[in-house]
């Protein structure tokens, strides 16, 4: 918010007022080109400084709907210095800060808890921050999550995933709770039963790995079903709410879509036994239906 910046702004405007529009355009293009050349030089400089270091090569998917040259997706290569303990996310950040500040990806916590950086790394869905570079084959291919639309570079549109999560009414029914400081009792066993399901960090890796979720976009998907499991199996939850949620799960785009591909379980960075939970809900639903026959 510095007016300092604004001052310069108006100066520039004044300069520009004299010029005709094409000239301005010309100047801007020149600047851009210069900038691009600069980047090229910068790149060479950084790369040659790495000559005698241990390095790794990243092949990163690039796409930007607005930027010339990136409208058609392409792969860029970045050579980054390697040190012990380095993760895929560290490498991406290094590449961004030293080569190309327009390299775009979500990240925040760097400790596998915010779920921002699920990526498609060497052919499988992983969290960038939880994947050691040392465990991967070089060069490392990094792409955005499959089955989701790419917004830019490694950023995908998560809205559909969020919608699916919301569709199972992912909240506790609190109509019938004790007053004040009185707590609802829950046995250890029951808490143990739902424990794994409560660990989900909404990274979307599972959904992206599931071919059914890809083919049929209405399928609730493993994460949402797991979320429903978390409540359906919690003894504290009221009967009516449980019934309602089971009904959602039993819709034709609910649990029955799952074909036990197990990909979700395999990629989940929180080791949630997703297939297990989905299967249990199918049985629960069948039992539930039989009661009504």
């Amino acid at each position: 918010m510095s007016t300092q910046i604004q001052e310069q702004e108006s100066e520039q405007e004044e300069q520009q007022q004299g010029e005709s529009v094409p000239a301005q355009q010309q100047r801007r293009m020149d600047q851009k080109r210069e900038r691009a050349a600069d980047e090229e030089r910068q790149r060479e400089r950084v790369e040659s400084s790495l000559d005698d270091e241990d390095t790794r090569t990243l092949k990163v998917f690039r796409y930007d709907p607005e930027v010339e040259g990136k409208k058609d997706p392409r792969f860029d290569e970045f050579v980054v210095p390697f040190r012990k303990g380095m993760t895929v996310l560290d490498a991406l950040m290094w590449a961004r800060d030293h080569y190309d500040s327009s390299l775009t990806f979500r990240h925040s916590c760097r400790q596998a808890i915010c779920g921002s950086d699920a990526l498609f790394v060497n052919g499988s869905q992983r969290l960038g921050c939880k994947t050691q570079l040392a465990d991967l084959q070089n060069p490392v291919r990094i792409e955005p999550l499959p089955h989701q639309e790419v917004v830019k570079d490694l950023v995908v549109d998560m809205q559909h995933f969020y919608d699916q999560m919301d569709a199972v009414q992912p909240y506790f029914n609190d109509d019938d709770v004790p007053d004040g400081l009185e707590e609802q009792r829950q046995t250890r066993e029951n808490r143990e039963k739902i424990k794994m399901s409560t660990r989900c960090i909404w990274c979307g890796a599972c959904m992206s790995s599931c071919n059914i979720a890809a083919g049929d976009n209405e399928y609730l998907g493993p994460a949402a079903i797991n979320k429903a499991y978390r409540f359906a199996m919690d003894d504290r939850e009221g009967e009516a709410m449980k019934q309602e949620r089971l009904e959602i799960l039993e819709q034709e785009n609910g649990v029955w879509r799952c074909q036990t591909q197990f990909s979700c379980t395999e990629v989940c960075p929180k080791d949630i036994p997703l297939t297990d939970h989905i299967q249990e809900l199918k049985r629960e639903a069948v039992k539930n239906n039989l009661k009504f026959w």
Partner: protein
Amino acid sequence: MHEHDVIVVGAGGAGLRAAIAAQEEGADVALVSKLHPVRSHTGAAEGGINAALRDGDSWEDHAYDTMKGSDYLGDAPAIETLCQDSPQETMQLEHWGMAFSRDDDGRVSQRPFGGLSFPRTTYAGAETGHHLLHTMYEQVVKRGIRVYDEHYVMRLAVTDHEDPEERRCRGAVAYDIKTGDINGFVANNGVILATGGPGQVFDHTTNAVANTGDGPAMAYRAGVPLEDMEFIQFHPTTLPSTGVLITEGVRGEGGILYNKDGERFMFEHGYANNVGELASRDVVARAELTEINAGRGFEDDYVLLDMRHLGEERITDRLENIIHLSEDFEGVNPLEEPMPVKPGQHYAMGGVETDENGETCISGLYAAGECACVSVHGANRLGGNALPELIVFGARAGRHAAHREKGESQIKTGPSAKTEDGVVDTPVTPGEVGSPGDDVAADGGALVDAPAGEVVNRAVEQERARVEHLMERDGTNHAEIRADLQETMTANVNVFREEEGLKQALRDIRECRERYQDVAVSDPSHTFNTDLIHTIETRNLIDIAEALTLGALAREEFRGAHWRAEFQERRDEEWLKHTMVAWNDGRPELYYTDVILEGEDKEYEPKVRSY
């Protein structure tokens, strides 16, 4: 232009709680957050929530522990509010279905924590923050509260009265990260800042990349003082490559710290002859850094934490998650090799000055959570006291913003609370580059009594110009500036603080500011331009770093987390007071206010803090 009654900026624990509370008061609430709510850093908290729930425990004891932990720099009304409300708020989470760990009788479990006289830390496994965050987000979904996720709030829209206490906050300006649109948000009742910690001021931190202190920086420039910024908690055992926290449990179980010469330095160099590795966080952190600075660290960067002698069985039984953390984030198997560790920034005790309702001196502007300083943590936060702060003061701020019944607050805010001017001898002039005063404090231009929409619109226009300018020109990449800033902060304003170092930091910050004048965004895209966001954040980091360092240089004593080489004692006669830094026409102004030790029915006596 969007219009809501209450705008909550930030959707971590504090923001979500505030939004729910405001909505329950009948307000139309919007959450505006640069991350999707469940990605907030509250999710990283492990330990637990302090609440006096059981027979044999009482809120008074909790308050006493907190006051003592704060090294008597907490305000009693704030601390007592925290401790009184925490049981209620914690139970509220239980009623919302939070997956707390359970005792045999089915009640929520509590465990002992450092500095507490009773085991009152309520927890959910080693992932309490994750559960707290998700439970509250669920309630937000249930209530249908409007969430604008991936919207970066870049400026507050505040009227431009001369005296900050007369200013009104009318809304905020946000940048839609996905589309690049800049939108105004009009707040009919109030804006609540809940933007979390400023950990990215340092280059080694347990905080997320998104924790850039945006809220405090925006409030600061709008005229709200920042309080006690010099008090930063450092954690002694974090992994060097990422800052991931290795719990104290490792040392508790018998883990040993070694330097490069293979010495068990806690004993061999006499840092803690009796308890060794089990000494308190700050002592261990200082010891590690002394070793590293003396050239006895590995790669001049870290020491080793060894737990192999505990045996595989015991480790997998009690510290299993440490094995995963170390392997996943450091590539080291702690059953085979010792883990590298070093101290890292962990928590900021200071922040936006507020009263116990969360309100700042600008009417309609609130703050809650780690970005705020109601002053419950004083000079040092106790483990397990931040999460209750989020829910207690988040709820209060939300309620108050929606429905200003305005219980007269006991804590005074703003310049009128000033009791003493501050003087500090700085090597360079801090504050805005160029002539001061250009950057009008409130950023609202000449608008004083204009309608809300106009104030917001004006702010939107200014932000549009700023963004356009940053994107059009050529110049320095912010990443270099940010890296240099973090480096000097970690070198000079870290665990060790010496006068010369602090002055050097001020010089470096100054230089960063000057270089920032030429900063430019090279990514020309309007779609998900993180380059732009990070560039704006870097400006905020500079402002925060400066306020923090000024406070550290001024405070000539050793209190809580603030250690000064030249002053090795707590000096109550002179320093029992809060540091305030206010952005006054582009120049930081330093002053002090009193600490309130007067409780509801007792007066807290400063004692020697020993455990």
